């Protein structure tokens, strides 16, 4: 029975992912003293969009139609390798963290090309800025993974987060906290949250994430949004996996509830950050990410000694 649990975890991930954007918006509304949109708002949006038709621009070609489903598929495949708290990932093999990172890269490849296919300057601007940030964020992500693999002594994502369990903290807890902090920064960059991009701006010149989906309509935008939510879940599960209280050894439902709680906590933290902090200037973003990279290198060296 318990080897089916990873499958259930997968289903929970697929269903609970859109909830996180609801949590973020509610926290922002709470800070702003508003009531805010319902928690299940993203579910309603996706359902509504899936029932709509589609409007395609004449300049776009085959690639524009291929990109959203391909992007979603890449993210779904990446989800298979993510362990959920006390239960292993569906699939794991040595070096699967490299595959996960490159699957995220592949999804970015499709989004960039779809943006350029429309031929609009706004989407081009979004694509160029996303390509610019991805150069640094992927390097930082790899360094964090390196630090985690040195700390946990294993070369697979499942090994690092699941099998190492609590033992990962024995090496040197303060350094691992640094790694968690850097992972959180990577989460913010990759999911275009506040310090790096403002999700609810409506001035196209400042957007990055939404700018790339300006021309998508109907089912395409649904897949786009759902892929973004899943990406948030994947990148949130990395710090969550580290912070998960392994000592308690709950049964299956307890574990998934606990894991869901930790990820909701990360989402709430992102929402709080979004209401308190403002966007960084575009030039400052690479400097911030280089600082994060430096932090992760220091952590790696300390962990390896």
């Amino acid at each position: 029975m318990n080897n089916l649990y990873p499958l259930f975890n997968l289903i929970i991930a697929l269903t609970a992912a859109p909830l996180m954007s609801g949590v973020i918006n509610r926290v922002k509304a709470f800070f702003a003293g508003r009531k805010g949109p319902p928690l299940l708002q993203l579910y309603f949006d996706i359902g509504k969009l899936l029932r709509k038709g589609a409007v395609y621009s004449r300049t776009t070609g085959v690639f524009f139609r291929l990109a959203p489903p391909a992007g979603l598929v890449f993210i779904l495949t990446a989800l298979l390798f993510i362990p959920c708290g006390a239960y292993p990932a569906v699939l794991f093999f040595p070096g699967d963290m490299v595959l996960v990172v490159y699957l995220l890269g592949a999804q970015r490849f499709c989004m960039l090309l779809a943006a350029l296919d429309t031929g609009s300057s706004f989407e081009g601007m979004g694509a160029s800025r996303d390509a610019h940030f991805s150069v640094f964020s992927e390097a930082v992500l790899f360094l964090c993974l390196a630090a985690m693999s040195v700390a946990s002594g294993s070369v697979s994502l499942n090994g690092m987060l699941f099998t190492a369990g609590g033992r990962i903290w024995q090496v040197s807890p303060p350094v691992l906290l640094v790694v968690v902090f850097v992972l959180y920064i990577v989460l913010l960059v990759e999911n275009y949250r506040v310090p790096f991009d403002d999700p609810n701006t409506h001035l196209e010149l400042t957007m990055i994430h939404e700018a790339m989906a300006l021309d998508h309509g109907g089912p395409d935008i649904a897949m786009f949004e759902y892929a973004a939510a899943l990406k948030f879940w994947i990148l949130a599960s990395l710090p969550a996996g580290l912070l998960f209280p392994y000592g308690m050894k709950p049964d299956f439902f307890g574990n998934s509830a606990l894991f869901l709680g930790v990820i909701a906590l990360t989402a709430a933290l992102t929402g709080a950050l979004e209401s308190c902090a403002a966007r960084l200037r575009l030039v400052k973003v690479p400097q911030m990410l280089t600082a994060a990279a430096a932090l992760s290198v220091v952590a790696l060296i300390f962990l390896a000694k």
Partner: protein
Amino acid sequence: MVFIAAALLLLLLSGLCALFLNNRPAVAAALCATACIASCLAALFPVFAVFFSGREMSFDLLWPAAGGLRLFLVLDRLSAFFLVPVLLLSALAALYGWGYLRRERNSESCGRQWFFFNMLVASMLAVFLAADGLIFLLCWEMMALSSFFLVVSRDEEESVRRAGFIYLAASHCGTAALFVMFAFLSAAGISGGFWNSAAFPGPDVGVLRVLLLSLGIFGFGMKAGFMPFHFWLPRAHPAAPSHVSALMSGIMIKAGIYGILRMFSVAGVTDAWCGAALIIAGICSGILAMLSALNRRDTKSVLAYSSIENIGIICMGTGLAVYAASCGGTLVCLLALSGALLHLFNHAFFKGLLFMAAGAAGKSCGSRDPDALGGCAKALPVTSSSFFLGAAAASGVPLLNGFPGKFLIYLAAFCGLQLKGSGLLLPSTAVIVGLSLSGCLSLACFTGLSGIIFLGKPRSCAGRPEEYSALMGAAMISAAAVCLFLTFAAPLLSFSLCGAVSAVFASTDTASASGLADRLAPLSCASAWVFVLIAAALAAGRLLLRRRKVSFGETWNCAYAAADARMQYTSASFFYPLSRTFTFFNVRKSPAAVSKTTFFPGEYEGYSSRRIGVFRTLLSGIAAKLEFSLSCLRWLQQGRLHIYIMYIMTALLALLLWKVR
């Protein structure tokens, strides 16, 4: 081995006939192309035999040339591993070239071009087989010479001639270093083994070994084109016709890597400094090459820089393997080197595919400047789809063959991190950072490039471009098919991969072949899984929209309905944020300011391009000083007879006073 000898002979004969058929280009092209394809396929039989079974074939004959020329050709597992892409890509390039040169303007040089093409293929085939120093140098120089004549085939432009000269000079300096190494080895007499390996000085003879190893790395590096020796590559490859640059980027620069690996198999691996040097060179190549590739006025020079980046990745893998071998990490060494070899194998195909597609797009749309093209995807389905496939492979999208090689090197680096206290921490971290940075830069570069060339509105393509020739289409499709097949065939290659690695580092045993296979297996099934899922998602999307209303409109441009092609993002604007961040590398060459004579400034057309400043200023400085000192020395021959007689008298007196006692 008989097949290979027959193939070589067929290539040479067909080349010579092409020379005499110069005035009938169509016949010459047909003859040479079919001869090349036939000989490549013929040579594939023995190569595949060795590739899969692993037993060696050799051919030894003492040819009575001056001073004795030993024709000693050995087809062992490392050569076989290199020869598979060589032969396959040569056949594809010949097919592509057949279509490419058919409507060439100056048809009178067509026969000559085919002669040099077949000579290039023959000499490349022979380079990977030559087991004696002199015959290796002979084929090495013939390879450089025939590729030089192909690079200079369109010699009316000054830049092409200059590129040819720099290429020939650079490859000759590299070969001079190899001359010294091989002369030293063969001065110790004819002994068995590859390049008479017995004569290579052991680790005890410190200085000599360091000198020979560095000469080898310099010589082979000049041909491979990683960072300090790359200056000729971005000029030579764009100048050559596309099927030749596909061959040069796909295979010829790999001969440099083959040479380095062969040198390590001859010299044994006990020098960590070699590994460190290769890693540093690899990282510099990877990152700096992609930085200077970002904003280029010519698609093929972007592809040339991307070749430098991929050679950088291969160097990182090899360097890590050598470093690991010298301090005992056998698993890391196996993984790193097999990653490098696999990436080398795959790079030959997807880079060949990219060059062919770029050439086809250039021929159809008339220009190769990305900012002048745009929107060709709808008009050129075959070319654009193969370019996208190549671009995806180059940026490391997991379901194509660009990814397995990098994956193994990453894995080796991560395993290197685990080995506590073996000094592998720093190189592994460096490799991880280098790989990820160059990976993302190539992702950004290729998405920008393919997006701007093929997607969006056509900027200046007069009329609807159409596919240039069916033969080129066939070549591109088969290359794309091979790329796709290689993603799934990675585990099948693991046995020969291990054979090649054991040919270089004798220590690794073939048992680890199975270990390698089961590390690559999940990759292939992940790729298969992704393909199936994408097809399903597409079908689902199509199903969803079947009953719904699908309409077509104009791209949303913030309520401005008459957006035209000029408002699209060009390559300069797409890469502006990236090049701004790495400004300390790039010297910005901004065109002359607009003259403000009239009230309304007139038409202004300029472009800004970025160069890697550091090398250019360094080299021009040295050239100026050299020129000045030479002009002073030329004073010696200033035409006055008296001074000349004085030279004789001083020479005579000096010798008499110094020597006679």
